[in-house]
């Protein structure tokens, strides 16, 4: 009961950070989605210099901690004249990082579409880009959705690192409550529950999307049965 009282008192303050958390998350994964597609395209279709650039980028961003990347952007870049506010820095850091992971999922998905699909599109007179847009991508994106959903949910939790540069998202607010009340057990249990609800809702939404876009022969029937 004590916990419920605590939650009743402090939850509203923490929940005020939800729009910030979700805002960080949506901007970062959207950026990662678009840039990840570009990187995947570079890895499969682009001439060698772009391929090497994309490959190097992916290796660097997968091989270093996101927290270090974020500090570099927020604290390091001002030294060369690039000053970003904390929220933007966090979006950029998480976005750049997830784009490297998303790129690899997209690459695998694009390559998993049978070659005959591209051939059939080209044979009817489509250019390569047209064939990618109308034939290959719609299949690749359906196939990648389960892995992409995992990545998206991971990133939702990773938005918590933004507290380290002073973004007032839910982890930062929980910490503030902690130092105000010294009820660290309760407050971090509470904020963990908030994350659990958020990831649960997001997982449900993404599964609903999976079922909506399911096409027999492109994606497995597991999604349809769920």
């Amino acid at each position, binding site marked *: 009961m004590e916990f419920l009282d605590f939650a009743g008192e402090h939850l509203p303050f923490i929940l005020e950070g939800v729009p910030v958390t979700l805002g960080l998350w949506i901007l970062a994964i959207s950026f990662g989605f678009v840039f990840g597609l570009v990187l995947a395209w570079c890895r499969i279709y682009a001439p060698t210099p772009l391929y090497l650039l994309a490959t190097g980028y992916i290796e660097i961003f997968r091989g270093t901690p996101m927290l270090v990347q974020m500090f570099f952007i927020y604290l390091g870049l001002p030294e060369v004249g690039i000053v970003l506010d904390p929220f933007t820095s966090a979006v950029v850091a998480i976005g750049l990082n997830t784009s490297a992971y998303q790129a690899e999922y997209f690459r695998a998905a694009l390559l998993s579409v049978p070659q005959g699909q591209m051939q059939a599109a080209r044979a009817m007179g489509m250019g390569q880009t047209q064939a990618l847009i109308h034939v290959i991508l719609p299949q690749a994106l359906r196939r990648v959705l389960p892995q992409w959903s995992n990545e998206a949910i991971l990133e939702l939790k990773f938005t918590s690192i933004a507290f380290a540069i002073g973004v007032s998202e839910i982890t930062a607010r929980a910490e503030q409550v902690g130092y105000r009340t010294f009820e660290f057990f309760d407050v971090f249990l509470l904020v963990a529950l908030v994350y659990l609800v958020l990831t649960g809702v997001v997982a449900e939404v993404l599964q609903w999307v999976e079922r909506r876009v399911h096409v027999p*022969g492109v994606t497995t029937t597991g999604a349809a049965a769920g």
Partner: protein
Amino acid sequence: MTKSDEEVLRVEDLHKRYGDHAVLRGVSLTLTRGEAKVVMGSSGTGKSTLLRCINHLSPPDAGRVLLEGQPLTPATLNAMRRHIAFVFQDFNLFTHLKVIDNVRLGQRRILKRSKAAATERAMQELERVGLADRAHYYPAQLSGGQQQRASIARALAMDPKVILFDEPTSALDPELTGEVVTVMKQLASEGMTMLVVSHEVGFARTAADEIVFMDGGTIVEQGPPSTLFANPAHERTRAFLKVITHQESA
């Protein structure tokens, strides 16, 4: 079989090699409007490569392909391919699209037809291949024979000047080849210009204007089916025909 002398497709001295292996060693042929030509020969003689080189899915190393006198070049390729339909051995229907959308996609995106016009035309072609009732199925929900008929409808909707068939029945169970051959025969009788790589003796005998026999990357013999089946001049042709006509009667 309403043949005219008007030349639709001309293939001049095509060469193609993969590594050390010369798959095509100078193949030339012409198709006149309304003509149905069947290319036969044992496997590995370059029949499918010939078709793929004609629409440059595999660019030929040497030689030319002309459609109504216009050469296919990298610059004109996309614009000219819409006139050269290709029917694949394994159908290659767009798996994420319903049958009707498969037949509409090229019409919409390449020929820029309105949605209403594309839909009307798609339904006509699906009717023609006997699949109007499957218009809203996905490819994976169809049998192989139905998928191949749908891919023929997709080809027809583009108003091609010629259709290339690459072993259209080879991936099908024997009991499903008939429905595809029937559609192809009907097209030939309606005057569609077609170049068919196939071992379907039934189609070759009754629907082809001419049989082209390939061996080792070249054309060794060609002529009307009556002559070629009854009286093949070449030893390789005789040996091959013996095998496939035997299979047919078995």
